[in-house]
C-alpha cells in the first residue's frame, strides 16, 4: 500500500512523536508513506480567519503537487490538515465561484488541479485499507488498557464519507482490535478549543477539563488522540486545568499510532512515548 503523505507543520515540530510513531507503525503494517515534495501549511484556522480564500488556495497547492505526481489519494495525520485539505476539495467540486478563484490563483504560479484528489486520515487507512483483522493478527502485546478514544472536531465534521459527525467509532474499533477496552463517552467528538488555547485560554481550559473529566469518570486510563492540537491542549495544559478547576488529573494523552504501535510490539523509544507532559509510566510499563 503506497500513499502520498502530507505530514503537516506540527509533525515536523511540536508533534514529532506523532510523526515517529506514524512512520514506525506504517512500516510494520506495510504502508508506504511518500512525503509530498515542498508541501506548505494547510492554512488551518489561523490563515482562514484572515483570508478564507488563501487557506483554500494553499491547501489546493499541496493537492496540485500530489496530482502532478500522479497520486489519487493523500494521507494526513492531523485533524486540522484533514479538514482544511478536504475543505479545498469540497469548494473546488461544489462551488463554481470558488473553483474559478482557486484555479486562477494556482494558474498564477503555473499550477493546475482537477480537484479530484482524495484526502484521507491515517486512521481511515488503518481501519479500512489495512483492515482490523490484519492488524489484530499482528498484535504481539494486547493493550489491556481502558482507553477513551478522543476524535475531536474535524475527523467527522462538517461531514465526510469516513466518519460520523456526532458519534464516531472507527478508533473504538481499532483500539478494541488491538486488545484495549474502550470506554464510551459523550465528549469524544467535542471540541478541545483548538487555537483558542492561545487566544481564549479560559474557554479552552474548560472544554479540555470537561473532556478529561468525563473520560476519567468512565474509568479511562489513557486518552487516545488523532490530532497534534488535541494532544497539546489535553496533555500540555493538564497542569493548568488542575490548577484552574482544583482537579488532580494525571491522564496520559497518547496518539493512536503510539498505542497501536505498542500492541504491535514496537518499543516505547521507537514510538517516542514519553514526549508528552503527563507521565505515562504508571499506566504503560511493558
Amino acid at each position, binding site marked *: 500500500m503506497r500513499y502520498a503523505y502530507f505530514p503537516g507543520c506540527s509533525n515536523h515540530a511540536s508533534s514529532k512523536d506523532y510523526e515517529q510513531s506514524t512512520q514506525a507503525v506504517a512500516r510494520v503494517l506495510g504502508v508506504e508513506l511518500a512525503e509530498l515534495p515542498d508541501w506548505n501549511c494547510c492554512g488551518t484556522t*489561523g490563515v482562514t480567519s484572515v*483570508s478564507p480564500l488563501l487557506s483554500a488556495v494553499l491547501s489546493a497547492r499541496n493537492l496540485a503537487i500530489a496530482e502532478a505526481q500522479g497520486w489519487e489519494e493523500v494521507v494526513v495525520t492531523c485533524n486540522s490538515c484533514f479538514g482544511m485539505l478536504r475543505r479545498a476539495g469540497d469548494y473546488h467540486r461544489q462551488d463554481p465561484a470558488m473553483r474559478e478563484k482557486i484555479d486562477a490563483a494556482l494558474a*498564477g504560479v503555473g499550477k493546475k488541479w482537477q480537484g479530484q484528489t482524495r484526502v484521507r486520515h491515517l486512521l481511515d487507512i488503518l481501519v479500512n485499507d489495512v483492515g482490523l483483522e490484519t492488524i489484530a493478527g499482528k498484535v504481539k502485546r494486547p493493550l489491556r488498557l481502558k482507553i477513551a478514544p478522543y476524535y475531536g*472536531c474535524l475527523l467527522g465534521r462538517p461531514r465526510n464519507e469516513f466518519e460520523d459527525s456526532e458519534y464516531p467509532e472507527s478508533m473504538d474499533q481499532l483500539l478494541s482490535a488491538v486488545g484495549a477496552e474502550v470506554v464510551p463517552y459523550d465528549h469524544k467528538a467535542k471540541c478541545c478549543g483548538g*487555537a483558542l488555547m492561545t487566544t481564549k485560554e479560559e474557554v479552552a481550559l474548560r472544554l479540555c477539563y470537561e473532556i478529561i473529566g468525563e473520560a476519567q469518570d468512565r474509568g479511562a486510563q489513557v486518552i487516545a488522540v488523532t490530532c497534534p492540537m488535541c494532544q497539546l491542549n489535553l496533555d500540555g495544559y493538564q497542569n493548568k486545568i488542575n490548577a484552574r478547576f482544583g482537579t488532580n488529573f494525571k491522564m496520559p494523552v497518547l496518539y493512536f499510532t503510539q498505542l497501536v504501535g505498542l500492541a504491535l510490539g514496537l518499543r516505547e523509544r521507537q514510538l517516542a512515548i514519553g514526549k508528552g507532559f503527563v507521565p505515562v509510566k504508571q499506566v504503560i510499563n511493558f
Partner: protein
Amino acid sequence: MSTSTLELLPEEGLEPGFAAQVASYPGGEKIRRCIQCGTCSGSCQMSADMDYTPRRILAMVRAGMKKEVLSSQAIWYCAACYYCTARCPMGIKLTEVMFALKSLALKEGYVSLKQHSPAFYKSFYEVVERYGRMHEASLIIGLALKTNPLDFVGLAPFGLNMFRKGKIEILPHGVKNRQEIKALVQQVQRLEVR
C-alpha cells in the same frame, strides 16, 4: 449583554448591503435561508461566553448591523469545531461565515491588533506568508510584538518545557519555493478585491 438599553434601532446606522457582502464570501451563500431556530447556538460550546449567540450574529448580519457584528467579541470565540455547520437544518455553513466575519473585521479595521485574538490570527497569517509553514517561535514573537510582550512572559516555562522535549524548533523550516507562496498570497489578494 452588550446592548444595555432597548432603544429604537437607528435605521441610518444599518448597512443594507452587509448581508450581500457576507454572502459573497466562501460558504456564505445560504445565509438568507436562516430560520433562526438556534440549533447553531445550542450546539456551540462557546455560546455561553459570547456577547451575541451565533444565531443572533446571523440575524444581525441580515439586519445590516455591520458595526456591531464586526466589533463583537463573539466571532473571536469560534473555535471552528463545525458543529453548527454539521447540524444546521438549512445547510448554512456558519463556521465559514464566522471566518468571513473575522476576516472582514481585520480587513476593515473594526478590531485593534492590540487584542490577542486578532493579533494571533494576523501573526499566524504572517508566519505562513513568510515561510509557507508554521513556526511556533516566530508566531509567539509576532504576537508578543503586536500586543504586550509582558503578557507572554508566563508562557516561558511552557516554551522551555516544549523545547526540552524537542517540540520547538529554534529556526523555521519553511518551504523551499517561498517565491511561489508569496505569489499565491498576491494572487489571492488580487482575487479578494471586491
